[in-house]
């Protein structure tokens, strides 16, 4: 079944919302970010700040000093980019228990176009000390991530999408903050993907297999703190890496993987992502093709990475 991670976020808030420490804030987008489902059930713990993201983040910090678990939601571009300095100084520096649950990340926002498509938010959030950055790949992972970050005391950036995405996991899945998940084993190359790129990564696995290439596929839902072990092991055992993300190739998952490898075990890495340009209007599926966030591109990059392996 297809479900947007933002929809799963709304469901999770409703499901776990009976915890009276939970407060939810929104900046006039509650029907889009899906926090409206929490508002319905727990109106006394929901606060609309109006279209004022800076105040939303800083007041969330004040609430968190009162032993609350505060979820602050807006589109990624307004939460993580417009209010970046509030997140840094009001939330991360004092390490307060605020969860920035940002929806409509990436170009899959679609028709609203470049002004509403955050392509740099992971880079910004990842560079903040004390911040944890999580991007789930499907509805089940989202719900479990929400549960996990309720239990985790500290700032979190939860990156969510507008577009409905296919299930990757079944009910047996267990999410753990900071733990990458190997979805397919292989010895020739490793595809490390996050968010809605996990599905094309699995499709690329099939395409490569049909050509006799065995790819390992890893889902990195926690981009910070990143699972170094699973990345180093993949580099050691497969010798070549492809990363795939719906984000600028500068500063996101690809950069995070390269940072691990250049410190620990240098290996060829090719990055699939948005090639340092702004998005545009269009149907999400059309944009995904236009920006080459596809299984085909992952296959091409996988072969290039393999060719770069040391002999």
């Amino acid at each position, binding site marked *: 079944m297809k479900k947007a991670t933002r929809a799963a976020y709304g469901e999770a808030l409703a499901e776990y919302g009976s915890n009276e420490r939970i407060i939810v804030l929104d900046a006039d987008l509650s029907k889009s970010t899906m926090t409206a489902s929490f508002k319905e059930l727990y109106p006394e713990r929901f606060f609309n700040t109006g279209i004022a993201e800076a105040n939303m983040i*800083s007041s969330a910090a004040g609430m968190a*000093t009162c032993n609350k678990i505060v979820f602050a939601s807006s589109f990624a571009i307004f939460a993580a980019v417009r209010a970046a300095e509030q997140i840094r100084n*009001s939330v991360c520096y004092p390490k307060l228990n605020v969860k920035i649950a940002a929806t409509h990340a990436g170009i899959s926002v679609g028709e609203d176009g470049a002004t509403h498509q955050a392509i740099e938010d992971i880079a910004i959030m990842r560079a903040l000390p004390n911040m944890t950055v999580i991007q789930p790949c499907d509805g089940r992972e989202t719900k479990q991530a929400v549960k996990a970050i309720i239990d985790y005391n500290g700032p979190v950036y939860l990156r969510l999408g507008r577009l409905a995405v296919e299930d990757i996991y079944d009910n047996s899945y267990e999410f753990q903050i900071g733990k990458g998940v190997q979805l397919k084993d292989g010895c020739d190359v490793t595809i490390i993907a996050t968010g809605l790129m996990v599905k094309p990564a699995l499709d690329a696995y099939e395409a490569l297999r049909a050509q006799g290439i065995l790819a390992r596929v890893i889902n990195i839902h926690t981009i910070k703190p990143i699972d170094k072990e699973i990345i180093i092991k993949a580099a050691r055992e497969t010798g070549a890496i492809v990363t795939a993300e719906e984000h600028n190739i500068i500063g996101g998952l690809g950069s995070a993987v390269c940072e691990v490898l250049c410190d620990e075990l240098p290996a060829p890495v090719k990055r699939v992502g948005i090639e340092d340009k702004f998005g545009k209007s269009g149907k999400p599926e059309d944009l995904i093709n236009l920006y080459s966030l596809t299984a085909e591109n992952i296959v091409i990059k996988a072969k290039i990475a393999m060719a770069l392996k040391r002999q």
Partner: protein
Amino acid sequence: MEQELLLKLKRKAADVRKNIIDAVFSAGSGHPGGSLSCADILTVLYFKHMNVNPSAPKDPDRDRFVLSKGHASPVLYSVLAEKGYIPKKDLLTFRQADSYLEGHPSLKDVPGVDMTTGSLGQGICAACGMAQMGKLDKRGYRVYAILGDGELQEGQVWEAMMYAAHYKLDNLTAFLDHNGLQIDGDITKVMSPEPVAAKFEAFGWNVIIIDGHDMNQIDNAVEKAKKTKGKPTMIVAETVKGKGVSYMENQYGWHGKAPNQEQRDKAIAEIDAYIENLGV
């Protein structure tokens, strides 16, 4: 208020002013002007009104204080030292690499600091969040905040003004330290936020205008704020930047500059003379 208490508070504010001078002098940097301008306000709050206990700095029922103009950290640290939250001698480590007394207040580092501030405009928003939670949890605590008048140029302040009035945060009392000066000069020449009182009123706040160095007026305004229902209160405190040190008064050059040894000695001598005059 009673004469005896008034004298005591005046003496306390004078001690706070000496602490400010010595902290900034020791650091060789910092913000004396805007610390001195709100020293009387913090003194009345901490020593007459606020329900706080230095041995339980995280008590969920305590009153909160947010120094939205975080660069005035010397006044907050000085009051916290006088109140017994931190040792007075630590003030002399202000801004040093081996000290916990950061240039701007950090709640993780300093007992008694309720919110990390320094980036202007953010503290007042955090104060709104605290007041909102006080209402939600039906706790009787009050939240106090101090804004600088230059700080009003930050758009985020006005987001908070809307928010506090919209949610009827009558447990929130903010002070405007209206000393009229910012780093680059006169606030009306740099970027005028005037008329400030009319703006706060238009945003739905209860506004009280006082002489920010008259402790009776500060006291009365806080009492009025406590009795005001359905609205947050903004106390527009007309103040003098650098108050209490003659050569710093009304001089924007003393916004962010430390006195040298000679200037420090002169400032302390002036305040000591003032204390002697008080006779307490």
